[in-house]
């Protein structure tokens, strides 16, 4: 039999169980909509995800396929999210104080690290939202979901699950060459921010990261500028968004905000210690070309880490180093197993199954709801359902 045909059949067989599983995860089984637009969007996204898995299994390349999914999710997220909140509250992109006390504020994963100490000691979550399971964006849902993802892929969250990260990932791919070089010490910035927001959240009993620093308010929602203090907070998040999410990633080809600012990323690095997956360098195959050091989007590889064959704490398992390594020395790896060889292929396949499952669970919902709104606009002239 033709070798390519054989490879296609094997890849199709490997994709098939996921295609079956993701049929349920994406919600295809629960068509309850009156019209056809919703099922069409979900079906399109289901096909999209499965095609992507097929391509990544067939080509053996991870990062480019991941980036397509990841960036699509980040662009799609505001479309569905903002319109859904608009329908719930009646105002566009802004949260007002009434939303805070009525619990209509969605809970986001970045909130988790700063709320964890008060939650453990006083059973209080320092964030305006709701625990009500009826509300799609409730705190209770997100906490359990985060636990699940941490078991599945650990810090992989930052390159496979985060619905904001695609903005930076996209911007960091826009230019061909890095125009500025960043100091690798900057990766510790996020740890300092994490410590600061944990301490200040306890002191002020308010989510200080969300109020003062979160740049992604620019693509989700922000507080109505009702006081001078809120005006200052608004300026800060706009500057951080333009600087750390758009300009610096474009100039440096690195995911700057993720490295320097995001407390969730730093927190997830610690959580990642319990996860069985990591990326390793097979020292016997390493050509010492240092291409991975140059290309890693989160500066997780240094000469010292190459020497050890391990990644730095900021590694988010995007797979870029695995793809670009000329000596094929970088591998997906299950802790405890030997580095490289057949084990690497097994580790990568299992990791991809898990990462794609999460993507089917959250990314598919995000992309399909954006697609639904776009189809709605084309067919009815309005993006609103009501």
């Amino acid at each position: 039999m033709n070798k390519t045909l054989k490879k296609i059949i094997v890849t199709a067989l490997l994709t098939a169980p996921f295609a079956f599983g993701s049929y349920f995860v994406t919600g295809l089984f629960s068509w309850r909509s009156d019209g056809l637009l919703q099922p069409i969007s979900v079906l399109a996204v289901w096909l999209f995800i499965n095609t992507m898995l097929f391509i990544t299994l067939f080509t053996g390349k991870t990062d480019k396929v991941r980036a397509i999914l990841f960036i699509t999710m980040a662009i799609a997220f505001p479309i569905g999210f903002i319109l859904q909140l608009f329908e719930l509250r009646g105002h566009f992109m802004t949260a007002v104080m009434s939303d805070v006390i009525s619990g209509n504020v969605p809970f986001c994963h970045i909130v988790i690290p700063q709320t964890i100490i008060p939650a453990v000691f006083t059973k209080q979550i320092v964030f305006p939202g709701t625990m009500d399971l009826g509300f799609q964006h409730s705190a209770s849902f997100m906490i359990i979901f985060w636990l699940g993802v941490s078991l599945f892929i650990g810090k992989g969250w930052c390159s496979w699950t985060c619905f904001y990260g695609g903005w930076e990932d996209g911007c960091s791919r826009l230019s061909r060459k890095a125009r500025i070089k960043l100091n690798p010490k900057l990766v510790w910035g996020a740890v300092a921010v994490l410590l600061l927001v944990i301490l200040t959240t306890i002191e002020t009993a308010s989510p200080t990261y969300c109020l003062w620093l979160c740049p992604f308010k620019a693509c989700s929602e922000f507080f109505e500028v009702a006081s001078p203090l809120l005006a200052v907070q608004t300026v800060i998040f706009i500057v951080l968004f333009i600087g750390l999410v758009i300009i610096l990633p474009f100039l440096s080809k690195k995911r700057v905000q993720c490295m320097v600012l995001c407390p969730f990323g730093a927190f997830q690095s610690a959580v990642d210690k319990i996860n069985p997956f990591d990326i390793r360098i097979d020292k016997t195959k390493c050509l010492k070309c240092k291409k991975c050091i140059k290309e890693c989007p989160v500066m997780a590889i240094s000469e010292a880490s190459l020497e050890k064959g391990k990644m730095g704490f900021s590694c988010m398992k995007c797979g870029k180093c695995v793809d670009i390594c000329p000596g094929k020395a970088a591998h997906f790896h299950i802790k405890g197993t030997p580095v490289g060889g057949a084990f690497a292929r097994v580790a990568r396949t299992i990791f991809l199954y898990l990462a794609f499952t999460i993507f089917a669970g959250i990314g598919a919902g995000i992309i399909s709801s954006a697609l639904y709104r776009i189809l709605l606009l084309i067919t009815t002239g309005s993006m609103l359902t009501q």
Partner: protein
Amino acid sequence: MNRKLSITIKALLGILWTTVFAVGGMMLFMGNRVLAQSLLIDNNVQIISKYTGGETSYEKDKGGYLMVVREPVRDGVFNKTKKSFVQVDWFAKESLPGELGGSIDIDSDGRDDLLVDIDIKNNKVTYEVYGSNIEGLASRSAVTDYIFKRDEDGKDALYHYRNRSYGGIVYKEGISVRIIIQ
């Protein structure tokens, strides 16, 4: 120990670790609702009271809408403030009347503590205080800045919202005010 054997054991343990976590993760995803209920909600993990308004002290059916008086809430996580506020809500399944209010007993001692008069359309609250420990109404912008910032003229004290879930029921329209107590 034989080196080959130790490598095999380590590899098997690694694969076991992955399997356990994959199954565990899948259970968390599939049982999200049940686990959130049993691990968090049943264990009384809550959104901090300064945002939600706190536990209910008592409710009063006003015919067509519901009035809820909450327990006093103090700011802070570990070191609570001396001052507190009491939130009063009015919820309607469909819509609230344009004007409402009346005397309110905020500490459930049988005596009314203040009289409020709310004009929802014009977003205005007028009030009269009976108790000496009441400082006034809290300003709306105080939720994110200073929780005990006073609203001087009643123009910035009313929270007006829709689709509020309370006691398992979604109320289409709701309003609240917060009364600062020394």
